[in-house]
């Protein structure tokens, strides 16, 4: 017997995964709809590239589908597992990827005030992604998980297979480095230098 899609909205991720492993079609649809935006967002923030982030999201979720029959409910959070897999997949790509320079940040083109504010925010985000690319890979991952995804240091340590102390150090150094890189961008992006 399959549960209706709407009835799955309040079901936890790992319970959905067990339903998925048992052949429930609605669970497959619900999981894909729930986890795709999450995994894509993390990958995009780490890579700064939509196309690559899409590939990583698909690969991470393929690994989840393969793992589903062996998933032990209650032992680990699906999101923590996905943070780890996504981080590792991004790390592989970051090691092969050529860094994007700050000069490649797009300039605002729309002059209307509301659009200007919107563009300014998007430009700050773009500036941050470009600056993140200048960080060593592990620092970048730790900063993204801490300051963009809002994870606590122990969760980051779990996702990146590092000690909490190592994560604290990575986050602090990464943030300091970002501050240095972005300090010259503040005026241009409507922030007080």
């Amino acid at each position, binding site marked *: 017997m399959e549960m209706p899609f709407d009835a799955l909205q309040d079901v936890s991720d790992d319970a959905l995964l067990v339903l998925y492993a048992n052949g429930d079609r609605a669970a497959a649809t619900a999981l*894909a*709809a729930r986890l795709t935006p999450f995994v894509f967002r993390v990958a995009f923030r780490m890579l700064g590239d939509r196309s690559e982030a899409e590939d990583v999201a*698909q690969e991470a979720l393929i690994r989840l589908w393969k793992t589903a029959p062996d998933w032990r409910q209650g032992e680990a959070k699906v999101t923590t597992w996905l943070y780890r897999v996504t981080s590792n997949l991004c790390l592989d790509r970051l090691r092969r990827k050529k860094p994007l320079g700050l000069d490649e940040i797009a300039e605002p083109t729309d002059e209307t005030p509301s659009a200007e504010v919107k563009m300014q925010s998007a430009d700050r985000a773009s500036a941050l992604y470009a600056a993140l690319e200048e960080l060593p890979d592990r620092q970048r991952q730790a900063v993204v998980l801490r300051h*963009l995804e*809002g994870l606590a240091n122990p969760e980051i340590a779990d996702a990146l297979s590092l000690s909490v102390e190592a994560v604290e150090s990575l986050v602090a150094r990464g943030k300091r480095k970002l501050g*240095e890189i*972005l300090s010259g961008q503040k005026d241009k992006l409507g922030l007080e230098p």
Partner: protein
Amino acid sequence: MNGYDKDKVTDAGPEDFFAAARADDPGVSDELLQRIARDAAEMQPQAPSLAPVRAAKPKARIAIFPGNWQTAFALSFCLAVGVGLGLYPTTGLQEIGAQYGLSTVDFSAGDGIEEAMLIDDFWGEG
């Protein structure tokens, strides 16, 4: 302490950028959603299905007999013979025994009843 804290100055720096990036949801294309939903469906383990219920074949309906139809026939035959011997116990057996030169015992109907009456008398006397 001169009031200058290098870490505080630099740490406060990227917060506006972090806030902008957090607010900037990259969104997901429909194409990616469909691609991933298709993967999920294709890779989904199939639920173990129950064997379909089929009507029993006529042969299976008489499977209360152990073994095959020969066994069933033999059992039926023995049953019929047993009934026959029960109905006609003495004449047939005596004739068969006589054919093979065996001595016969003369039983007649009521022998057992007479024996029982003798036993009743015995207990009655007691």
